[in-house]
């Protein structure tokens, strides 16, 4: 083992630099500054606080046990037994991907969303956004009744007004437009068609704030049909992605993650391990998992694709006009290697591209055509319906609006005033339209301007369907009575068509006439319907294949040059962030507090700069810079001020900023978090969270563009403290505690694929030895013994588990200021490590949660025995015993314990309905941490006993395991040698983090295996 090996991984640039300059400082386990010692609390403030505390204590002591009422049903619904959870299959409405859901209902209300393991696309995973979307149901700021000119009205009044106006518009033959995001629901589309069909001049205009319009346009050119193909990552052995963040935010990340993982199974015989190369300007989640990352500025992407196409064309012997192409900014050698790999895996390779440039997409189609990807790794016969937006039609709609030609505009599922580059110009234009109706249930910039708001139900309150991919139709069923006087979109459309009907009837009739004929298994509709409602989806074997034209080579044109940037000029890249996406769930505090998987910053957007660019500008993390665009942005804005985040692995001429921030919906967070003397607001100076960068998008040549050049940066000299969890919980072995030779062993272990295939034990850096124990081995574990295995190869860092745990375990949101003070409460965090010199870095994601150590250091220091071991290997935290000394947290080597510095209640009392009644809500002064979802363990054990059956492996799934799209987390009984977790823990890849301190954790990690060139490998793993 090489001596310099151990600190290969670092979490932040500060840490890396400190490692070089003073290793001792970098190992500081508690980097918190003592704010009180240097802070600004004066004597008077102290006395005030002390006085309040005293009075509070006295008053609390005066409480008597209150009389509590037990109020049963009058007449109990047949299927409900109080205290038991019921699961209903449904379809997620969090985005357009349409993942399968199991909605956990307790006492008549949904409390948790889980992935549906039977679902053919999402296969049991559910992303962070999907998990968090349940909180939107209990949002009391939703629009809960129809509005007329901003005032509450009845449905009759609103319908009468709208129908009157529509009648006039129909008679005069004026234009009616329905603007929405992608709707994949066959029933909604048919109902909408019937509604629009009544008007001589009516059109449905679709745009997606995260547009894939260029892909669809390219297929229209190359295959004669405007469609989005269904990408089959599970079939791909070599994947080349051009700025498509398919594991995090692109089209259907849950399905793609599951597929991607299916092609990377080392334990399969023979071992499968796809090769993934990512070309991108910034560090994306997908890039962080790539075997090879090549940094490309956004304006150079087309040129690089052209070169790759030319190389593959010459390999395939296909004609390609290769003259006069500028040299690419990336090494030709690397590109040639990629081309070679793709070519060798012909028919099993896949090229995806997130660019919004149609010619680049056409070139990608050409490459896929050369590689015989069609009908192998790309399905055109049963295409995806997840993104159907057409930016050209959006552009013509905007022109019509400017021309005052539209008489009625219906808006559903989108927020154009916020989403679009010239959104603020829309406000006066919308005022000129005689009838503007919004169908959104969330108050936003657009609903404010609508004449009528006809709020739709939350997706958990209504019947509906979605067809994310042709032939797979998901069904949604209501899981509770609507909380307000809202109405399903289907019902509104039917009412305005003149055929008022309930959403259930519309859906059922539509399924009978449209969906039922497409299947072959069931002969009676009732049986088919019942099965579909039970399953939550229907697979339609009889779906007709989409007929596409053969590939038309004539439309392929090389991109000859890339726009050059001058000295000190940058390309601005606007990207969607995990969880927040386009800002459609910006009002969700769980998603706002979810650390970005790469930067680990919460509650803000910021300007990402590469270390070299930051050094050249003499700025560091938190310094505010001013972005200035040459040509004015959509709303005439010329500058934008944002704090800097220094992002290793980013292109040096790129500044990247997240979309979805600074919307009106975030104004609610002004009072977020504890309001105490030293507390600072969660919102910024503008009263909102982050800054909106939508005006910096460009809607040009019929496509929304997510980058712009040139942009200049100017340091402002101001500084903003970002709420980052990046340097939380440094894990390192103090040399005095480790056995000789093991003290510098890193927490991430890895090896190269070639070495692994030679010897499955490769990369093992330290062999476990039997230690003398201070503790008696007095845990016999005669029954179960719970353990967890986490596969670092599978983990993409997508953070679905973080939100799943938060929902399941009533983990509170603390607000930006508290996050800054290192008081985030998440029980599971994902540590993100970098390796490398800062320009090109390798990334590792490591979920870190309570390790349930056998020799737990926390247990030995607790003076009140509030944390003790149980007979099944769990390290229990007993809230009612805890007095809050925080000794346990100090002594925890993994830094996974969380202390309640305050009571952190939901800011909206209605949100309390989402609390899991099976988990105690912790109050101020209590330590808490991961319990391995012990409530689920107890439930499964008791149910097994009740049924008189043995507890079967897999009956217990923790919340993190359930949600993981990659299947990276497995929990089970280690005492059962046949359980999945036992098998995984016997794997040659298994290691324990900090094994050398002999705390004997119950969590085993499976080592990372990387595709890497052998030469580099030898040097590293020695």
């Amino acid at each position, binding site marked *: 083992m090489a001596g310099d090996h151990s600190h290969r991984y670092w979490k932040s640039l500060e840490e890396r630099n400190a490692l070089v300059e003073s290793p001792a400082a970098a190992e500081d386990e508690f980097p918190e500054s003592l704010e009180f010692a240097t802070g600004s609390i004066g004597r008077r403030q102290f006395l005030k606080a002390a006085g309040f505390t005293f009075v509070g204590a006295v008053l609390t002591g005066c409480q008597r*046990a209150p009389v509590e009422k037990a109020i049963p049903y009058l007449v*109990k619904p047949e299927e409900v*037994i109080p205290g*038991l959870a019921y699961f209903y299959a449904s379809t997620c409405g969090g985005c357009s991907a349409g993942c399968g859901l199991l909605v956990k209902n307790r006492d008549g209300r949904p409390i948790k969303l889980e992935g549906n393991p039977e679902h053919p696309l999402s296969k049991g995973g559910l992303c962070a956004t999907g998990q968090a979307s349940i909180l939107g149901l209990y949002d009391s700021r939703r629009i809960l009744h129809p509005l007329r000119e901003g005032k509450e009205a009845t449905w009759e009044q609103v319908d009468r007004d709208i129908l009157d106006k529509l009648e006039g518009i129909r008679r005069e033959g004026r234009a009616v437009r329905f603007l929405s995001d992608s709707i994949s629901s066959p029933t909604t589309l048919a109902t909408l068609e019937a509604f629009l069909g009544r008007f001589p001049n009516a059109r449905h205009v679709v745009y997606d704030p995260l547009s894939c319009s260029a892909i669809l346009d390219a297929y229209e050119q190359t295959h004669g049909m405007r469609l989005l193909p269904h990408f089959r990552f599970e079939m791909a052995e070599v994947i080349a992605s051009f700025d498509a963040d398919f594991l995090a935010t692109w089209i259907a990340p849950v399905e793609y993650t599951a597929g991607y993982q299916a092609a990377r199974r080392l334990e399969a015989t023979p071992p499968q391990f796809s090769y993934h190369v990512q070309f991108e300007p910034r560090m994306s989640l997908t890039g962080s998992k790539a075997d090879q990352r090549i940094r490309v500025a956004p304006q150079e992407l087309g040129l690089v694709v052209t070169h790759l196409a030319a190389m593959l064309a010459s390999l395939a012997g296909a004609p390609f006009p290769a003259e006069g192409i500028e040299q690419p900014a990336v090494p030709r050698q690397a590109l040639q290697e990629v081309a070679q790999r793709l070519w060798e895996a012909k028919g099993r390779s896949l090229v995806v591209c997130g660019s919004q440039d149609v010619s680049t997409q056409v070139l990608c189609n050409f490459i896929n055509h050369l590689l015989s990807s069609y009908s192998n790794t790309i399905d055109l016969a049963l295409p995806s319906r997840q993104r159907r937006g057409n930016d050209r039609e959006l552009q013509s709609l905007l022109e019509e609006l400017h021309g005052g030609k539209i008489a009625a505009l219906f808006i559903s599922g989108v927020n154009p005033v916020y989403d679009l580059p010239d959104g603020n110009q829309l406000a006066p234009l919308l005022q000129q339209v005689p009838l503007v109706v919004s169908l959104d249930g969330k108050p936003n910039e657009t609903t404010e301007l609508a004449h009528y708001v006809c709020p739709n139900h939350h997706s958990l309150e209504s019947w509906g369907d979605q067809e994310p991919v042709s032939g797979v139709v998901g069904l949604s069923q209501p899981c509770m009575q609507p909380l307000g006087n809202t109405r399903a979109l289907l019902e509104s459309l039917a009412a305005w068509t003149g055929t008022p009907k309930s959403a259930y009837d519309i859906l059922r009739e539509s399924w009978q006439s449209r969906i039922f004929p497409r299947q072959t298994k069931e002969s009676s509709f009732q049986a088919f319907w019942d099965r579909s409602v039970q399953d939550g989806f229907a697979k339609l074997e009889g779906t007709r294949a989409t007929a596409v034209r053969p590939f038309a080579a004539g439309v392929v044109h090389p991109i000859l040059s890339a726009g050059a940037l001058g000295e000190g000029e940058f390309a601005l890249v606007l990207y969607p962030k995990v969880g927040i996406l386009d800002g459609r769930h910006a009002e969700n505090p769980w998603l706002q507090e979810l650390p970005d998987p790469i930067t680990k910053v919460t509650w803000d957007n910021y300007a990402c700069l590469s270390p070299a660019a930051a050094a050249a500008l003499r700025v560091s993390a938190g310094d505010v810079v001013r972005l200035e665009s040459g040509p004015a942005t959509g709303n005439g804005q010329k500058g934008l001020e944002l704090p800097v985040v220094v992002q290793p692995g980013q292109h040096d001429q790129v500044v990247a900023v997240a979309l979805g921030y600074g919307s009106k919906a975030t104004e609610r967070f002004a009072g977020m978090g504890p309001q105490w003397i030293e507390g600072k607001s969660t919102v910024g100076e503008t009263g909102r969270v982050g800054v909106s960068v939508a005006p910096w998008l460009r809607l040009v040549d019929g496509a929304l563009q997510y980058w712009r050049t040139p942009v200049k940066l100017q340091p402002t000299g101001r500084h903003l403290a970002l709420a980052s969890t990046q340097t939380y919980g440094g894990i390192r072995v103090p040399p005095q505690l480790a056995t000789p030779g093991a003290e510098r062993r890193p927490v991430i272990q890895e090896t190269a694929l070639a070495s692994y295939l030679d010897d499955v034990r490769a990369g093992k850096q330290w062999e476990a030895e039997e230690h003398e124990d201070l503790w008696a081995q007095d845990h016999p574990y005669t029954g179960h013994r719970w353990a967890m295995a986490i596969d670092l190869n599978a983990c993409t860092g997508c953070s679905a588990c973080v939100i799943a745990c938060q929902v399941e375990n009533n983990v509170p949101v603390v607000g930006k200021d508290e996050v800054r003070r290192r008081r985030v409460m998440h029980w599971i965090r994902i540590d993100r490590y970098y390796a490398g010199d800062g320009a090109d870095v390798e990334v590792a994601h490591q979920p870190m949660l309570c390790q349930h150590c056998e020799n737990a250091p926390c247990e030995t220091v607790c003076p009140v025995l509030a944390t003790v071991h149980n007979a099944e290997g769990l390290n229990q935290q007993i809230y*009612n015993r805890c007095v809050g000394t925080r000794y346990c947290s100090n002594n925890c080597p993994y830094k996974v314990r969380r202390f309640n510095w305050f009571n952190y209640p939901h800011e909206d009392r209605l949100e309390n309905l989402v609390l899991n009644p099976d988990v*105690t809500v912790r109050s101020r002064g209590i330590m808490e941490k991961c319990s391995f979802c012990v409530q689920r363990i107890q439930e499964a054990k008791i149910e097994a006993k009740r049924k008189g059956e043995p507890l079967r492996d897999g009956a217990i799934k923790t919340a993190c395991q359930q949600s993981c799209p990659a299947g990276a987390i497995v929990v089970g009984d280690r005492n059962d040698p046949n359980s999945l977790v036992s098998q995984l823990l016997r794997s040659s890849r298994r290691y324990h983090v900090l094994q050398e301190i002999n705390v004997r954790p119950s969590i085993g990690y499976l080592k990372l295996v990387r595709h890497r060139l052998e030469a580099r490998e030898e040097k590293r793993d020695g």
Partner: protein
Amino acid sequence: MNSRVLTIVLGVGLAFTVVFFGWSVSPRLPGDQQGYEPAQPIAYSHRLHAGELQIGCLYCHFGAEKSRHAGIPPAGVCMNCHRFVIASLGAIRAEHEQADQQKRPPQTVVSPELEKLYAAMGLDKNLQPDPSKPTNPIAWVQVHKLPDFAYFDHRAHVNAGLECQRCHGPVETMERVRQVEDLSMGWCVNCHREVDQTGVAGKAVEASIDCDTCHY
């Protein structure tokens, strides 16, 4: 001299206070509600139903077998019988006798407690649902209450063969339900220790004394 008198007076006062409070406040832990016997909105008698009429506990508290909560029966369960039984036999006989004496047809007698049930269900005189009447679930006063941080599971105990009386006392003899045991943690744990040795109803059981059996 004066100060000595004062000291004695204060000392006697202190002793009196200590003794007085010692008597009036029984030595129990905070939250201990042993002996709690609140008045209920309807004077339902367990002695009559469970004792005299021998109706099984699980007939009304059907959740106890399947769920963590035994549950207070929905009013609909009462109506299974009280659709037909609307007053005590004694009251009906008395009315009949009185009617005979006064030479008039006997009137329908409805027990005043059952009137409350019918009112809650919004029923008319013929015990049919009357849409014009409001329905109000009955707000019973909870007697046996554990703190929010303790998770007791009825189904685990009932299915192990434990008798309800073991924790709830002789409910079938009580006119109004009273909390018999103190429901403290020590009391729970003692039983868990005991049955690990002795078993329940002749069967061996695993009654864990791990904290997270109840606290999570």
